[in-house]
């Protein structure tokens, strides 16, 4: 297993998507922002779907609103390329359905898995083990699964439907998200476990 982990670092070093150091730094800040905004907490991630907290939708909408405009200009000026995931319709809808069930019960997304474990949460560690088994089962049965994941509807982006007005579409999309994020009510589940020393 150690050799496979070493191989993982070699793949990253040779792939051309940033050096290993850069990827680790991106991950470090990704984990730090998730932890510092408390996105890794069950109370936030499951909490917003059971109307106990509104941090997740507000933060996610702000991120997408700002990133959508930034990404558009980065691509426009040649500093990035879009990498859009395809719509394999059956897989996408069924997968999102299963993901939604998992998300509201575990209260962690795969991004927050290791962040939450690093905070000492044993239940998340078990969730990660479940996820590892889930990933392995998918890998094992992939030849059987892939045949019914379609139809493949390609990689459309919203502005493909408004070819001459792509910037306007991005700006409207971003504005709607920012306004929604701002006007969503502030509901916060204050976890006593986080504020022990203060109170």
């Amino acid at each position, binding site marked *: 297993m150690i050799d496979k982990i070493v191989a993982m670092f070699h793949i990253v070093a040779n792939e051309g998507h940033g050096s290993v150091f850069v990827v680790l730094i991106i991950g470090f800040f990704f984990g730090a922002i998730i932890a510092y905004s408390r996105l890794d907490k069950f109370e936030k991630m499951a909490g917003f779907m059971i109307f106990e907290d509104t941090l997740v939708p507000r933060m996610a909408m702000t991120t997408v609103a700002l990133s959508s405009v930034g990404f558009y200009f980065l691509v426009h000026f040649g500093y990035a390329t879009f990498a*859009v995931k395809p719509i394999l319709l059956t897989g996408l809808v069924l997968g999102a359905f299963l*993901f939604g069930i998992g998300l509201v019960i575990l209260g962690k997304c795969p991004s927050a898995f290791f962040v939450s474990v690093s*905070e000492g949460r044993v239940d998340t560690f078990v969730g990660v*083990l479940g996820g590892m*088994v889930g*990933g392995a089962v998918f890998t094992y049965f992939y030849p059987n699964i892939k045949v019914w994941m379609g139809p493949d509807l390609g990689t459309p982006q919203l502005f493909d439907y408004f070819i001459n007005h792509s910037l306007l579409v991005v700006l409207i999309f971003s504005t709607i998200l920012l306004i929604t994020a701002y006007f969503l009510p502030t*509901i916060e589940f204050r976890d006593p476990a986080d504020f022990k020393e203060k109170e």
Partner: protein
Amino acid sequence: MPRQIPWWIGGIAMSLLFYFSFSSFGANRPIGASTGVAYLSTILFGLDAEHYEYTAQIEKSGAWEGVMLIGAFFGGLFTSIFLTKSFHISFIPTLWKKRKNSSVKSRIFWSFIAGFLLVFGARLAGGCNAGHILSGGSQLAVSGIIFAIVALGTGVVVGRFFYKAKECKDDR
């Protein structure tokens, strides 16, 4: 230092990190996580690329996300020790106790099932909320928007039946 940053600072910080990762100044690719988890599972269970088509298919992207997730672990560890000061061994989230039960066995059982569904579902869909909702949404990808609507809609409906009803006395 504050123990937590507000949603808007979190959103701005996350989008700045997304700019860096997405642009050629950083990694020239968007951030994602579930491919990394699946890739790490192929290492754990010895499902090598020579024998398993899916491992071969996700090898490059999965390795990138796997290394990124290792960085995320240390970012989370640093933050929980020095900034949020929330590091402690725990088994059940506070809100689970309030809306579900106080049984460690129950929480552990459901965590395993939910973890399985999360990663299996994410692989079936081709991404999770980092890849589909945040990175996909930021590119106005229709796949990401479909994923967001179905996944979050399902979560709200399932949450309504899975948990006890909310006590109405506390909110404003």
